[in-house]
């Protein structure tokens, strides 16, 4: 029955599919949008990525409780917090209740001589003690005196007051009925820090479930509502959205294309056979990305869905263009394969540019498309003809073809109107030239505007840091980064004193370097010296030196006190701060010092950079996260524009090599360029700002459209275009439009952008190709 080459082809194909299936079964699928961030960033961008992946901000879940009344909300907040504090998945649950207040106080008070930057030899000299005692006595006279009176005999130099003053930087939400509430009092607030990183989406999902459960357990019959936001919550929501979108789109897309093909073919066999190249292509695409990148992104799968509409084209060409019997399949291969092969090559040339992208997400799309299209075309060419039954028939579409043929012959009449439309489109583009591109990285985010608004609201209410400005100190050991942090903190403190900054955080504030602690210990005089100094220092002050016996004892103990280690912070609320600000990655340590701007005053980045530069610390980096992410995105956009232009240039080069006729190549390129211009103008008119994925869409329009242009060119070369070929192009076009058109309805902005570009783009490419095709009169 089957010929030997046929049997070999089928066996190889099946083996290939099996191999793909094995690879895919071991593939890890991700929805982490950092795949759409660059691969080899600068040091600052690297930090941004680390921050996005597992920085302190990424572990934060902001919870709001709305509805019901204030007392109920506070009660729910306390009950939820109590339950969640017992859950090891959460590092901290903060709702304003003074859970760790006693331990925090004890840590500060017991280690005040190791922690306070005021501890210097001069501080314990006669003059230093005299000044410090005077200040403490003045404080006694003040309203706060009631709070510090009992500390005076043990802490006459006011170290505790100094430490508390330092920690008292951040604005905290108001307390209503003993729990944090928003400024307008309409919502109770909790700030929850998860143990898992924000990008561990499974763990974040479990954390969200635990929070929901705690909320329900706290008030089963309450009418209050729970709101959650934060980077981890966004990741979970994005994954859910991408997952549900991709699976829904794939199903609808397959059904839609199948219905379309069934209407055309009127044969289930043809339908099933027609999908074989598509399935092979999809499997090959996923397997190739998996091999090339180690994981496959959800967005790539979504894109793959749309590519179904493109890959199915090859079998449409085969079935529709070939005549009604089996020998004609060989004739089809002779007549049409070279054109289709060239079409595949142009598509590959376009996508190959994406492979060079420094952004793994784009490179994935490129690899997927190349592997998928090559496989689909190869299966159509080498395997499908051998699988067709002897009696294989599809519905005769010649009638449609003849009608199309008449239309096409008159299409040339539309040349001038088409040129007018093009000129109009160019005018629109010129007018919108400043607003065509969306240069905000947030454009890529699948998070809805409502969710972003909620996030902004809860953040403003809770005073959660937005971590825009940071100084990052890196080093080989914890001690090294703490030591350099102290030097940076010293500079930052002088900026605070000058009014440049409202405040800053530093891990060294809670855990000073061993060197500083040792230096502070060394500043403490021995008992005899201190006693002499004290006796002189009290002169002229209304106190007797004898009052300070407890002080002498405490200083004596501090001189030989064990130095503070990270573990001494356990069970205090400062432990969380230190863990968030002091990060260890393999044998590399980083300390983060987030800066807080004064209300209504922007941070003066050059002033801070200049102040830091005086330290000559190579390992201390001032980072503006927003500026970095914007720079990163605009780099991303510029690179993608260059790559796309490179893709177009490669396509033109390829055509020039094949045809050796610039005029002929121009004929092929003109309808494609026209389609791209018209679509872009249309998007601008509808107020859609272009982002990276629109650009990829335009590249696809060129890749797909080149097939149409090639068919028109080819037929013009020998004779009038065959009605059958025209019909096949229409069907191929419809399936592509169906596949990508569906994406336009997606609410994942990345997918939607491709949809709204490709679907109208390929229709226009076909129409322009017909209009600008060479006629007998040319």
């Amino acid at each position, binding site marked *: 029955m089957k010929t030997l080459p046929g049997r070999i082809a089928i066996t190889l194909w099946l083996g290939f599919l099996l191999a793909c299936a094995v690879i895919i079964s071991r593939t890890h699928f991700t929805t982490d949008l950092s795949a759409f961030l660059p691969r080899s960033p600068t040091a600052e961008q690297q930090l941004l990525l680390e921050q996005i992946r597992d920085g302190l901000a990424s572990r934060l879940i902001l919870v709001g409780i709305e509805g019901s009344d204030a007392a109920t909300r506070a009660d729910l907040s306390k009950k939820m917090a109590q339950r969640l504090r017992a859950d090891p998945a959460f590092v901290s649950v903060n709702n304003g209740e*003074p859970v760790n*207040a006693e331990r925090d106080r004890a840590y500060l008070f017991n280690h005040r001589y190791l922690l306070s930057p005021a501890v210097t030899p001069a501080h314990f000299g006669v003059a230093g003690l005299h000044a410090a005692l005077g200040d403490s*006595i*003045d*404080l*006694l*006279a*003040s*309203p*706060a*005196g*009631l*709070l510090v*009176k009992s500390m*005076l*005999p043990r802490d006459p130099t006011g170290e505790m007051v100094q430490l*508390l*003053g330092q920690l*008292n930087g951040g*604005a*905290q939400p*108001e*307390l209503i009925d*003993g729990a944090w509430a928003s400024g307008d009092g309409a919502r109770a607030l909790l700030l929850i820090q998860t143990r898992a990183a924000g990008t561990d989406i499974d763990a974040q999902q479990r954390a969200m479930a635990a929070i929901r459960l705690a909320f329900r357990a706290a008030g089963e019959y309450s009418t209050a509502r729970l709101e959650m936001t934060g980077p981890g919550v966004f990741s979970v929501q994005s994954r859910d959205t991408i997952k549900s979108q991709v699976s829904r789109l794939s199903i609808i897309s397959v059904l839609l294309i199948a219905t379309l093909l069934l209407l055309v073919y009127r044969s289930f066999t043809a339908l099933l056979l027609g999908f074989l190249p598509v399935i092979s292509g999809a499997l090959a695409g996923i397997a190739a990305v998996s091999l090339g990148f180690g994981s496959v992104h959800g967005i790539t799968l979504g894109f793959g869905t749309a590519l179904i509409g493109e890959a199915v084209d090859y079998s449409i060409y085969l079935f529709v263009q070939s005549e009604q019997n089996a020998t004609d399949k060989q004739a089809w291969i002779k007549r049409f394969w070279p054109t289709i092969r060239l079409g595949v090559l142009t598509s590959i040339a376009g996508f190959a540019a994406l492979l060079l992208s420094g952004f793994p997400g784009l490179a994935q799309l490129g690899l997927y498309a190349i592997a998928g299209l090559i496989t689909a075309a190869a299966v159509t060419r080498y395997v499908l003809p051998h699988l067709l039954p002897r009696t294989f028939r599809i519905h005769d579409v010649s009638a449609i073809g003849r009608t199309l043929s008449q239309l096409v012959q008159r299409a040339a009449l539309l040349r001038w109107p088409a040129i007018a439309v093009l000129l109009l489109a160019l005018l629109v583009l010129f007018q919108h030239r400043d607003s065509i591109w969306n240069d905000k990285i947030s454009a890529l985010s699948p998070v809805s505007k409502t969710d972003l608004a909620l996030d902004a609201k809860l953040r403003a209410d809770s005073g959660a840091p937005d971590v825009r400005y940071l100084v990052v100190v890196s080093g080989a050991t914890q001690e090294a980064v703490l030591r350099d942090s102290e030097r940076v903190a010293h500079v930052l403190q002088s900026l605070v*004193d000058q009014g440049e900054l409202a405040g800053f955080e530093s891990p060294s504030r809670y855990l000073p370097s061993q060197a500083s602690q040792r230096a502070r210990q060394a500043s403490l005089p021995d008992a005899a010296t201190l006693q002499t100094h004290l006796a002189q220092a009290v002169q002229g002050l*209304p*106190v*007797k030196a004898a*009052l300070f016996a407890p002080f002498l004892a405490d200083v004596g103990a501090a001189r030989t006190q064990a130095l503070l280690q990270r573990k001494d912070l356990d069970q205090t609320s400062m432990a969380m701060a230190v863990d968030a600000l002091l990060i260890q990655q393999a044998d590399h340590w980083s300390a983060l010092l987030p800066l807080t701007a004064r209300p209504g005053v922007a941070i003066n980045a050059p002033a801070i950079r200049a102040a830091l530069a005086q330290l000559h610390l190579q390992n201390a980096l001032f980072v503006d996260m927003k500026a970095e992410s914007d720079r990163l995105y605009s780099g991303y956009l510029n690179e993608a524009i260059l790559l796309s232009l490179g893709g177009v240039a490669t396509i033109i080069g390829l055509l020039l090599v094949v045809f050796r006729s610039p005029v002929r190549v121009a004929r092929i390129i003109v309808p494609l360029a026209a389609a791209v211009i018209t679509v872009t103008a249309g998007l601008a008119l509808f107020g859609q700002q272009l982002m990276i994925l629109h650009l990829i869409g335009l590249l696809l329009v060129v890749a797909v459209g080149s097939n149409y242009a090639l068919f028109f060119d080819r037929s013009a070369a020998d004779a009038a275009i065959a009605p059958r070929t025209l019909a096949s192009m229409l069907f191929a076009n419809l399936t592509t439009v169906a596949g990508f058109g569906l994406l336009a309805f997606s609410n994942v902005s990345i997918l939607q952008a491709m949809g709204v570009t490709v679907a109208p783009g390929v229709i226009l490419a076909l129409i322009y190709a017909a209009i600008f095709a060479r006629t007998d009169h040319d």
Partner: protein
Amino acid sequence: MPRFIRPLLIALSLILSGALPVISHAADWDIDRLMQGLAQTRTGHARFVETKKIAMLDQPIESSGELFYTAPDTLEKRTLKPKPETMRVEGDKLVIERGRQKYRLQLQDYPELAAFIDSIRGTLAGNRKALEQAYQLSLEGSASAWTLQLVPLNAKMKQIVARIRISGVRDEVRSIDVDQADGDSSQMRIEKLSPP
């Protein structure tokens, strides 16, 4: 006693005593009257001199400055000497500004301070109910020279404050004396200023 008999008895006693205006006041004078009078004042501005006697210190420390009050719960104490310092209470929020430092505290985190501040605010606002939640009240003297004594009810509070004595003339507070449980004390003399 039936309602109408009481005024009758008072009238009788007045005639008998022959000192009508003064006694009329004294007999009618009670905490409710005082509170009503005090509640009339919606805003106030005064100068203060405070003397604190602290056992740890050999001599009393004196501070002075200005007080601002806006009914019902905003109180600002602006100390000018010996060191400028501002304490402002509004509802449950307490802000202390001292030099460059600015402390924001929630009153309920500091129950001792809260009780103390509430005694002054409650008196200025004429809010008997609020005062009686934390203190046992007793009134001495007449409308023209009264002294309201507040003794804490709460055991924890009693460990800090023994009693607070607020004296005044009609609806004006003239002094606030606090005796702390440990023997320390403070006296604050208040002199009304024209509204700012």
